[in-house]
């Protein structure tokens, strides 16, 4: 997850194409720490702003595997160790019927890890973010596209602002408030 520090510049764009182009140009100018905000997933953004692979699939695999083992274990513990019942001489450790609840456990565990893993990886729920202080940011969930770029420490001038303005930003302003 890219966590932007305090000194960032936020540019507002009217279209997804303008945002994509701005990401490319800003990266070409040597800036790497940036985040986009858009009302929907912009196709092509993955290529324009590559990110490391998500850890979610591995989390989900681990969750599913753990839950499957746990579900099978509970059944063995309950029906073999704690409360064995002899019904018509059938084995108390009955692998075939145990598969059913094991599978359900697997799916449940994996789904819980998928959902909560997704939240944890994104740091959600977190109701306050400095980007929400930006004027007009309400439209990021509607029809406007925002690009926040961290101001380089060694070049505090207006070069970045001017670059963003030249890329067709509707508005360019600093991010305010505690990160």
């Amino acid at each position, binding site marked *: 997850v*890219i966590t932007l520090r305090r000194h960032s510049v936020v540019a507002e764009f009217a279209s997804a194409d303008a945002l994509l182009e701005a990401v490319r140009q800003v990266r070409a100018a040597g800036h790497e720490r940036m*985040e*986009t*905000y*858009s*009302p*929907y*997933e*912009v*196709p092509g*953004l*993955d290529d324009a*702003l590559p*990110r490391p692979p*998500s850890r*979610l*699939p591995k989390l*989900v695999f681990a969750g*599913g595997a753990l839950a499957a083992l746990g*579900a099978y274990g*509970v*059944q063995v513990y*309950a*029906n073999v160790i*704690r*409360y064995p*019942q002899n*019904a018509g001489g059938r084995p108390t450790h*009955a692998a075939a*019927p145990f598969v*059913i*609840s094991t*599978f*359900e*456990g697997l*799916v*449940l565990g*994996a*789904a*819980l890890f*998928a*959902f909560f*893993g*997704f*939240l944890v*990886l*994104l740091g*959600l*729920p*977190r*109701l*306050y*973010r400095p*980007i929400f202080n930006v004027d007009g940011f*309400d*439209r*990021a*969930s*509607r*029809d406007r596209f925002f690009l926040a770029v961290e101001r380089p420490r060694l070049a505090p001038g207006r070069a970045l602002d001017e670059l963003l303005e030249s890329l067709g930003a509707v508005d360019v302003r600093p991010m305010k408030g505690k990160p």
Partner: protein
Amino acid sequence: VSARTAQAHVNAGTDTVFPDTTVTVSSTFPRAIEAGSASSGGLLLRVESDGALTDRLLAPLRAQPRGWRAAFLVSLAGTLVFVVAAVYTMLTGIGVWGNNVPVAWGFAIVNFVWWIGIGHAGTFLSAFLLLMDQRWRSSINRVAEAMTLFALVNAGLFPILHLGRPWFAYWLIPYPSSLDVWPQFKSTLPWDFAAITTYVIVSVLFWYAGLLPDLATARDAHTGRRRIVYGVLALGWSGAGEQWRQHRIALLLLAGLATPLVISVHSIVSLDFAIAQLPGWHSTIFPPYFVAGAIYSGLAMVLVILLPVRRLYGLQTVITARHFDNIAKLMLVLGWVLLYCYALEIFLAWYSGVPFERYTYLSARPVGPWAVLFWAMILLNLATPQLFWSRRFRSDGRVLFGAGIAILIGMWLERFIIVVTSQARDFLPASWAGFTPTVVDWALLGGSIGLFTLLFLLFLRFVPPVPIAELKHMQRELLEEGG
């Protein structure tokens, strides 16, 4: 209920099933859903700016179409009927139902299987089609998944009531208690419990995860108390690129989990029957047969819900003839799968040479005491979908709505035939019995429909029924492709 409410607002000269309302965009529906309809038609009929699309899809949160309040009151009355019947059952015992020995399962299990089957189509339309990269799921997946959730609420209530002492339902959870008694995992009841619980939780997670961006949109479009409520529910969604990426991955993973899950759930429901020895139940074809029937009945419910919702909320440009055409074609296919299952079941009973199986399939069902219901089931389930060979019928709202109702009734009858005839006519004629449902049985069935529509109306009131961000994304992709 939506249709019934709509009936109260019939305008002279318009159709009686879907009369005009204030928010309606197109008046050509339902005779032909729109001009140039059917398979050639698009998924979006109008290119709109992202802002206009957002406003239109958020509109249901601000104002409800005429008839919402009346439908709500009718549903509330239905829900009260359910509550009264359920409380009466709990206080008195399930002897107030028509169940007897040998027909120990009765309406409770018929309704349970019917409702949970209806739920399956929602997961099918959202999860299967997401994995298959089918774009037409975009506009309808939220309504379909909401249908799943509310059908599951009903499906969960019936077996719990059927326990007789529902306040002990938690005994199904394996936990170390002072009783030192544990669930028996070789029995079907804990399987049902595991399957239904998992299905409910996964459906809620999948639905909520898909909803997050739209809750943020609702947050940003409101002020005051609503902004706070939607804001808390949106969990701080900002639309960051990283969020969108993880969101897509999470939804794909959840869809990949929900797809085998939904197949397992109705398979497990079918094992309740197939594990037993009763003629008419003890059959290896049951899991696929039940899964096909489940999705089939659920698609019928999707039609019955989607047609009035689309009309009353003016969603004609985003839920188009193409969607209905696709659903109708799916139903035609599933109708034939069901026909194959019915035929194979009867053939296997005859071919097995087992006299009890032969008696059940060749005498008890087709000419026994419930023969009328059996033939009604055959007619409703197998003849109705044949209408969908015709493109004209696939794009006629009234035909689709009527077919949906017919198949819902037919599928309820199927479960009735399976549950009741096999128990009432088992091995020994000495143990045969009849089955007569009581007023309480009917009240619970009718009331559960009221509860379902009540929950659905609340959903329409508080949640954007069409995924907003997903449609904007789809519109962009379609425009990029020059569609």
